């Protein structure tokens, strides 16, 4: 009660400092944010700039941002210097089959965890989450030995098969969280009409889960497009390489030191990045929601 008397006297100065404070912090905010944005973009624009330069222009001191002559042909040259199309095809086969496998298996498993009560379900869910903590290095050696014995090394099976068995716990978790938000009444209504669980999943739940499904597609695409560790270990024959692996190997083949053709290297690296950049611009929302979800609920 006493406070109420004191308040009006101090209210005005507080408001003024708050306003000055807010304007100042906004101004510095814009400054920092802009400067940092420029800094963040610098490597990428440097990459594009180098990719369009002639080799002697690359090694001119001091370097300039704008190529003296713009050499578009660096791109076709870079992409024919190593079997780019072959690697692209390999990468697409792996990504497409793993994305589909992840989607199919994760939906089934997530539906079970979200909608079908059973003894042991909670325990199994904790087990599922705990697999996210296990470093891949622990399992890779026995898996490599197993795949060698099965004759799977130098095939895509080691990279593809796990995705069909919902090995990516993150995707199951993400879908389950989403399925939980769909009202039970909808599936109950379908059940009254005599629909089985699989029908409920495909006809009721999935059509309502578009954002979650897109998040899974986008993330699993990125994961396998970018993957280096798996291909490096399981793909040892050159004609089975993926783009990431091929790019790393290409690096050693273009010489070293002063003679290194950085313009071609940058062109090839940029091309490998482009699908991810494009995907990000079209599906930014799903990337951000997916990442945010891991932080808030994980």
């Amino acid at each position, binding site marked *: 009660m006493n406070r109420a008397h004191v308040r009006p006297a101090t209210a005005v100065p507080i408001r003024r400092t708050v306003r000055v*404070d807010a304007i100042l*912090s*906004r101004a510095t*905010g*814009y400054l*920092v*944010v802009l400067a940092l*944005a420029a800094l963040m973009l610098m*490597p990428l624009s*440097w*990459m594009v700039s180098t990719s369009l330069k002639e080799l002697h222009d690359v*090694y001119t001191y*001091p*370097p300039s941002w704008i190529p003296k002559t713009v050499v578009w042909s660096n791109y076709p040259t870079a992409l024919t210097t190593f079997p780019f199309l072959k690697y692209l095809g390999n990468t697409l086969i792996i990504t497409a089959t793993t994305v589909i496998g992840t989607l199919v*298996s994760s939906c089934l498993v997530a539906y*079970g965890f979200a909608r*079908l*009560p*059973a003894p042991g*379900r909670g325990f199994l869910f904790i087990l599922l989450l705990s*697999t996210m*903590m*296990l*470093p891949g*290095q*622990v*399992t*890779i*050696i*026995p*898996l*490599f*030995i*197993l795949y*060698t014995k099965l004759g799977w090394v130098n095939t895509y099976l080691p990279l593809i098969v*796990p995705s069909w068995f*919902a*090995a990516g716990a993150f995707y199951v978790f993400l879908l389950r969280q989403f399925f939980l938000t769909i009202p039970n009444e909808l599936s109950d209504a379908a059940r009254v009409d005599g629909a089985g*669980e699989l029908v409920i999943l495909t006809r009721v739940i999935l059509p309502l889960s578009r954002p979650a499904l897109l998040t899974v597609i986008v993330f699993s695409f990125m994961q396998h497009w*970018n993957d*280096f*560790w798996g291909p490096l*270990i399981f793909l040892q024959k050159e004609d089975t390489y993926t783009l*990431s*692996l091929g790019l*790393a190997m290409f*690096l050693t083949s273009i010489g*070293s030191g002063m003679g290194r053709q*950085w313009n071609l290297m*940058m062109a090839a*690296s940029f091309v*490998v*990045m482009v699908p991810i*950049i494009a995907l*990000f611009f079209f599906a930014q929302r799903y990337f951000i929601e997916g*990442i*945010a979800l*891991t*932080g*808030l609920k994980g």
Partner: protein
Amino acid sequence: MKRGGLARRQAILFYAFVSPWIIGFLAFYIGPMIASFYLSLTSYEIIQPGEWVGLGNYGLLLTGDSLFWHSMSITAVYSALRIPLGLLIALGIALLLNQQLRGMSIYRTIYFLPTLLPAVASSILWVWVFEPNYGVLNNGLALVGVQGPRWLGDVDWALYAMVIMSLWGFGGAMIIFLAGLQGVPRTLYEAAMIDGANRWARFWNVTFPMISPVFFFNLVLGTIGAMQVFGEAYVVGMAGPGPGGPANATLFYYVLYLYTTAFTYLRMGYGAAMAWVLFLLILLLTGLNFVVGRRWVYYAG
């Protein structure tokens, strides 16, 4: 009777739906884990069947392997720099972006994009950025009168270069912080302002406690990620001044050592022991985070 029937039916259906994961869990996690632990107790080398050595691999690793300590200390120094710096930048920028700045979504896009790019391609890009004579970084530094070091080609600087490279990927943690910040109720700030709390006090008494679970999550995830750095180190080693150059010795991360042990020299028993040491270390650090976290992480409700 009917209810029991339904429950049973649902339980059976649950196991049917979850069966792909159960098979996958046994085949790709539990089975390999047991096999890996068994291997770590042998001298298995793929071309020749190993012998049982008990805890010999572990003993050798911890007491007789200087490369183990070398690679561990590199990984530790790298992590000790990368984790706090990355968290600080990510949180600072998230706080800035959270003030409803105009064009916020554009900045968010720009900051977030690098985290998604393929590690191989972006590592190659950074090798070129760090190039001492013609690279953009040292030329930028020259503009302000600073003579840049040889970065990846210099024993004393290579690790810092790797840290800088990793900071380019602060966007993931930033997005998680932003999501956390957006969940802090406005009314709390209003209440704090009425009480006359300044910016700093508001941060420490409102913002930080409210986002501490998110901070904790980023810390745990960041620790696990930093311990397992591989692709960047591999590519930089290949692109650097050549095998055997200073970059290779100074960037000999633990997982890189593990990889060469198991897959270049095919010493798979020893490699498996290395993997278990890594796993136990990660568990230990995560556990430590949880114990210490209890003192500063605040869970509302």
